[in-house]
């Protein structure tokens, strides 16, 4: 699940790299969204009042469709052009992490049984959420829904985050949207977090800017990847006893993992996992398996409202009036022209002001006074 403690480390060392924005400020932006993670999120978060998943009359789960339909419409209504990216097969390196997740799910299932007998309903809810699994059917239904909505999607050969990052790198989209910080380790220039959250949570979108992250941490991209491996990623175990603070200092001092390991104190060196394949993990981040997107064409089309009604209302038991009303928003925005931005036309020039300010006046007396001045720090 992403990189351990990276967000905190960034906000300490590069405070300018994560900035909150209103969803409205992303009008006209194309954004690649990690679909598999979003669906998982929806299945956990979109629930009935009693904590059960939403289902239709036949008992089929509809939480994922509900989430995908309304949250996508919220984005489109704000002028955002989303493209969803679905996971392919997981990389070999991830098998350890996946086995761990399976184990946790099994344990949760066991706990449910227990909780049903002795525990409270809160306990049952807690453990049912942990047993959530996204199946191929869920993914296929979401793809069918997106087709009806006129929203494009991409099937990644491997990890969706890596594909999102590749799309952003190739300038096909403005940013990648995911909750996992992995996405910037895959070198997405911009990462948006909380984009698919519900409106009620009033959570601003956090925009993580990779170049500012590197600038703030004073690292190169390769050093940054090594830092992420030290912090703990999905692919290899981390070294016990090395926290975020020590990790960043080690990277700054020794520049790469090869040099860090022999330099570790005796005690910590014992904790280095046996057969530690950090170099393979590094390759996965540097050259992940992604589909070439230079010729990929992403098309946003008019929604097919009748198909949407057939699917969501007739098959899945959604309320027809609400589906039609929401689809109307899709239709309206598909037609609407996109508002341009001034920077698309005029280029930024280095500010003259700061240049002049830095030139200290010859008179040192004046300079002293400037420092004392009560101006707000930048």
């Amino acid at each position, binding site marked *: 699940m992403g990189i351990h403690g990276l967000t905190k480390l960034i906000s300490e060392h590069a405070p300018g790299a994560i900035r909150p924005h209103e969803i409205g400020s992303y009008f006209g932006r194309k954004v690649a969204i990690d679909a598999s993670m979003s669906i998982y999120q929806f299945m956990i978060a979109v629930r009935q009042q009693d904590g059960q998943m939403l289902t239709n009359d036949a008992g089929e789960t509809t939480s994922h469709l509900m989430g995908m339909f309304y949250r996508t419409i919220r984005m489109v209504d704000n002028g955002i052009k989303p493209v969803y990216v679905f996971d392919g097969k997981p990389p070999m390196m991830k098998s350890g992490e996946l086995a761990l997740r399976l184990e946790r799910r099994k344990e949760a299932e066991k706990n449910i049984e227990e909780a049903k007998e002795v525990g409270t309903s809160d306990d049952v809810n807690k453990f049912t959420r942990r047993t959530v699994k996204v199946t191929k059917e869920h993914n296929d239904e979401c793809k069918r829904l997106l087709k009806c909505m006129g929203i494009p999607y991409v099937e990644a050969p491997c990890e969706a985050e890596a594909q999102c990052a590749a799309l952003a790198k190739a300038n096909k989209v403005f940013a990648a949207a995911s909750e996992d910080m992995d996405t910037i380790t895959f070198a997405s220039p911009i990462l948006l977090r909380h984009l698919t959250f519900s409106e009620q949570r009033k959570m601003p979108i956090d925009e993580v800017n990779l170049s500012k992250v590197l600038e703030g941490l004073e690292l190169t991209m390769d050093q940054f990847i090594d830092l992420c491996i030290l912090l703990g990623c999905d692919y290899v175990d981390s070294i016990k006893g090395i926290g975020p603070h020590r990790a960043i200092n080690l990277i700054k001092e020794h520049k790469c993992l090869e040099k860090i390991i022999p330099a570790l104190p005796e005690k910590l060196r014992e904790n280095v996992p046996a057969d530690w394949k950090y170099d393979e993990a590094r390759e996965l981040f540097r050259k992940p398996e992604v589909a070439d997107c230079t010729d990929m064409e992403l098309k946003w089309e008019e929604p097919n409202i009748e198909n949407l009604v057939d699917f969501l209302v007739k098959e899945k038991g959604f309320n027809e009036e609400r589906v039609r009303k929401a689809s109307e928003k899709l239709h309206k925005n598909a037609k609407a022209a996109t508002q341009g931005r001034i920077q698309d036309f005029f280029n930024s*020039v280095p500010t003259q002001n700061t240049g002049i300010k830095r030139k200290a006046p010859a008179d040192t007396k004046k300079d002293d006074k400037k420092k004392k001045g009560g101006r707000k720090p930048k």
Partner: protein
Amino acid sequence: MDALPNASDFFFFPYSHLTTTTTLDTMLEARLQQAKLLKSLLEAIKELVTECNFDCNDSGIALQAMDNSHVALVALLLRSDGFDPYRCDRNLPLGLNLTNLNKILKCAGNDDILTLKADDGGDTLSLVFESKDNDKICEYDLKLMDIDSEHLGIPDTSYDAIVHMSSAEFQRICRDLSQISESVKIDATKDGIKFSGEGEVGNGSITLKQNANVDNEDEATRIELQQSVSLTFSLKYLANFTKATPLSTRVTLSMSNDVPLLVEYKLDNLGYVRYYLAPKIGEEN
């Protein structure tokens, strides 16, 4: 902090009195015959921009800022020869909160004589309002702030269509069309300029024909056309620009396809207010 100056300071460091406020070390001094002008200027930009730098140098005072969503840009120039007197020894950026500046300008009478003063490295802008008959003087100091602003290079564009028209008429058109539509399509041809809007309730359009109305120069619509253009813009922003209407009876709209619209209000003998607005772009998928 400010110790009493002793005699040796005056002898050896002629500028040591910088630590106290006197007019001698003032860096910027600009005197405007009518406060009304600056009051109207603030009304014209304060909706769009809340904080920005006024860049002062020996040629005058300039300002450039984008609105929050980076859709519009305002550029303002007040040339030094519009002031009497005007003095600015060195480039000096004055970072100001426009809402607060506006509060202070509201205290000035329209016909007051207004003087702006700032010290080098000082942290306030002084504003002095003198009544015409010279029997009332108001002095205000406004705190300055450091503002990190992005400065954009605006290329010299030779526009395909330049329309000169009455500023009041332009304001009226924007107001009327915003009743029914969010955006306006502007078509400029050799015959005239057409503004059209389309919304849920219906649609509407206003066409102004090219005319050289000799009786009333202010009302005339003149079009310099290299090539016909058709562009779509957000009315919300245009309506905002027309807050500059009191500054000039005339407005100039300069357009080329697929570049920002330039809306310019010229200030008599002083400079200009220019607004740039990024167009709405149709499907490019």
